[in-house]
């Protein structure tokens, strides 16, 4: 029966995709028949969550191997889709295009960093960790270096990095749920958590894998459809990603016309910004290049150290499949990432170009304020049209918007039907939920497998282990939702921090464990503690203690401080202490070839 299920995957997900498209069409018909926008949004979000929950229920399991690594039988292509959904969070789906919209070229460092990191995953990490046969990332650190201290350090870094990340995701699900269901944000957060737990609670990694594939399909359709639609309307063709060069040129003209960058806002509204950066210009001087490159490095090394991504490659049937799976992952991620700059460009054109019906800059303030979407987003304080100079005409420095809403508001800005808005809300929900699931599972598994089973009670039986894992999942999810409901950070800030934490503490201990046979326990522990402490201290200094960023290294890039410290600590301490014993060295040799049994046996 199991083999059957795997063989039938293309058919099952093909049917699912068809079913989802039928659902979209049905909604479109209902809209024509006069159904309200609110009802459509509600149906989209509820229907998709119901599907994920059903998959989660069908995948329930009481086996350790299935719970931790989905039975190691996920084919490369499907694991690629699951990883893409695991990877693309609320930040990628909801915030990235908005960031490019306001930040211009400098912001593309995220696009480069979050894709280039996969080259590191494929070449340095994934296949070797798959051969190792571990259940979690600390499981690998603990076995390769030996000793509970190394394992504990890895658990701590993992928990800090992943937890920072997961609150941002629960925050995003809360934002979307509160808008779709018209409930307060504080309640939306708990509703989002409920959806997330329905997917992962009963089936662990197996359930998360199959819901993530389903979520990828929803989110990619939801991202591509509005962009292609807008591009068609503006005459840039069906594959807009290759043809928006002219739109960029036109934006250049409009930026001069509206004096983007010269006209600064004279009022401030919390969390909202006006457009001041050039869309395509890269900025003069070494500092802007330096800022781009340092951000890209942190995001890339962070990608290769984030446990919720690495653990996806533990689920493939072979080392070969793990490698191929990284390639598929990046291809699926690429589909969204090379669309994000196109979306930012088209949306900006819609707003700025006075020749388009949707253009608002240069129009009468009263007309703009009467627009439906302007009113709707103003009500929730995500947008503000304010006649600062009192001339009755909207200038570029009088249109205030929150970056996070660009993607969600785009269908309305461009005057697309409500069904598209509903689709985009479902896509954003899928993106945030799938990432939150992966992260919660990474944390709960590290605590239940590494802390509880390996360190506290090695004699615990299977039932007890899996019960612990589930209780932890529930507790951590609740804690995350509670913190998210306090609204401490914006979606993107917290996400970048997670990458910096992960690369500061884990990057070098992970890489050198494979590539440097001499690396030993003391060195790894020094590397994890040194890098993590240095990075965190710098974050505190620059973000909370009011310190001046050193060479433009601000709170988004503190991994640039943490990583070198980690490397130096690890190498120096390793050289000062004894080389690892013969058994460990043999283990490293075994890791480097795909053939043969995994280093840790199944059911360890």
């Amino acid at each position: 029966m199991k083999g059957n299920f795997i063989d039938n995957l293309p058919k099952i997900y093909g049917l699912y995709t068809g079913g989802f498209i039928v659902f979209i069409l049905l909604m479109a018909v209902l809209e024509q028949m006069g159904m309200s926008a609110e009802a459509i949004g509600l149906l989209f979000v509820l229907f998709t969550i119901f599907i994920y929950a059903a998959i989660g229920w069908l995948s329930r399991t009481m086996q350790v191997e299935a719970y931790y690594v989905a039975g190691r039988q996920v084919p490369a292509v499907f694991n690629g889709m699951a990883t893409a959904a695991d990877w693309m969070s609320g930040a990628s789906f909801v915030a990235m295009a908005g960031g490019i919209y306001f930040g211009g070229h400098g912001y593309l460092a995220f696009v480069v960093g979050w894709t280039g990191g996969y080259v590191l995953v494929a070449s340095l990490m994934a296949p070797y960790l798959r051969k190792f046969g571990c259940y979690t990332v600390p499981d690998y650190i603990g076995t390769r270096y030996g000793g509970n201290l190394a394992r504990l350090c890895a658990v701590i870094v993992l928990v800090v990095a992943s937890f920072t990340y997961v609150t941002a995701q629960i925050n995003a699900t809360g934002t979307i749920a509160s808008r779709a269901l018209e409930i307060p944000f504080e309640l939306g957060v708990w509703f989002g958590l409920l959806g997330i737990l329905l997917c992962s609670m009963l089936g662990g990694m197996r359930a998360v894998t199959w819901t993530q594939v389903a979520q990828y399909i929803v989110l990619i359709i939801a991202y591509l459809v509005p962009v292609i639609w807008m591009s068609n309307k503006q005459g840039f063709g069906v594959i807009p990603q290759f043809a928006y060069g002219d739109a960029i040129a036109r934006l250049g003209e409009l930026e001069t016309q509206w004096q983007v960058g010269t006209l600064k806002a004279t009022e401030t509204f919390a969390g909202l910004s006006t457009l001041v950066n050039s869309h395509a210009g890269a900025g003069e001087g070494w500092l802007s290049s330096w800022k781009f490159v340092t951000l890209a490095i942190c995001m890339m090394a962070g990608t290769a150290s984030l446990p919720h991504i690495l653990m996806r490659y533990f689920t493939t049937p072979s080392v070969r499949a793990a490698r191929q799976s990284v390639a598929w992952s990046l291809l699926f991620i690429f589909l969204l990432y090379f669309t994000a700059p196109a979306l930012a460009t088209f949306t900006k054109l819609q707003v700025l170009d006075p020749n388009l019906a949707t253009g608002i800059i240069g129009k009468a303030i009263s007309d703009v304020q009467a627009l439906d979407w302007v009113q709707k987003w103003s009500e929730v304080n995500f947008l503000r049209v304010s006649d600062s100079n009192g001339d009755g005409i909207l200038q570029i420095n009088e249109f205030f918007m929150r970056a996070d809403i660009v993607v969600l508001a785009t269908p309305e800005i461009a005057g697309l039907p409500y069904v598209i808005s509903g689709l985009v809300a479902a896509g954003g929900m899928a993106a945030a939920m799938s990432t939150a699931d992966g992260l919660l599972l990474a944390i709960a598994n590290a605590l239940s497998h590494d802390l509880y089973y390996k360190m506290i009670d090695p004699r615990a039986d299977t039932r007890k282990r899996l019960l612990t894992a589930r209780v932890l999942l529930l507790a951590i999810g609740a804690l995350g939702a509670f913190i998210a409901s306090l609204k401490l950070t914006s979606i993107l800030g917290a996400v970048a921090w997670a990458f910096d934490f992960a690369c500061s503490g884990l990057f070098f201990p992970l890489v050198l464990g494979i590539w440097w046979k001499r690396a030993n326990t003391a060195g790894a522990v020094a590397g994890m503690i040194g890098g993590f402490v240095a990075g965190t201290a710098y974050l505190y200094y620059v973000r909370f203690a009011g310190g001046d960023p050193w060479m433009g290294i601000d709170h988004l890039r503190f991994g640039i401080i943490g990583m070198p410290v980690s490397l130096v600590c690890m190498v120096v301490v390793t050289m000062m202490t004894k080389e690892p014993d013969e058994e460990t060295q043999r283990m490293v040799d075994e890791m480097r070839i795909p053939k043969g049994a995994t280093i840790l046996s199944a059911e360890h």
Partner: protein
Amino acid sequence: MSETTSDARQAHWAKTRNLTIGILVLWFIFSLVVPWFANALNTMSFLGFPLGYYMAAQGSLVVFVVLIFYLAYKQNKIDEEFGVAEDDQ
């Protein structure tokens, strides 16, 4: 299952290492060097885009995807050459 000899292992690892270094050099160029010179590249035009912008928004990404597919293909060839590939498939 016969034990792979230690010489074969060493040769396998040397080739693997060289492939990895090659991949990482290309990765370094497209993820860090090209964006560093974005401003200069923007004076050139590609498919109607300023080149520096194009590389960061699309060009480098395409290179990364191709690199990883190539790596998977090539590493598999190396594994098979030295008889250390997995037996399944």
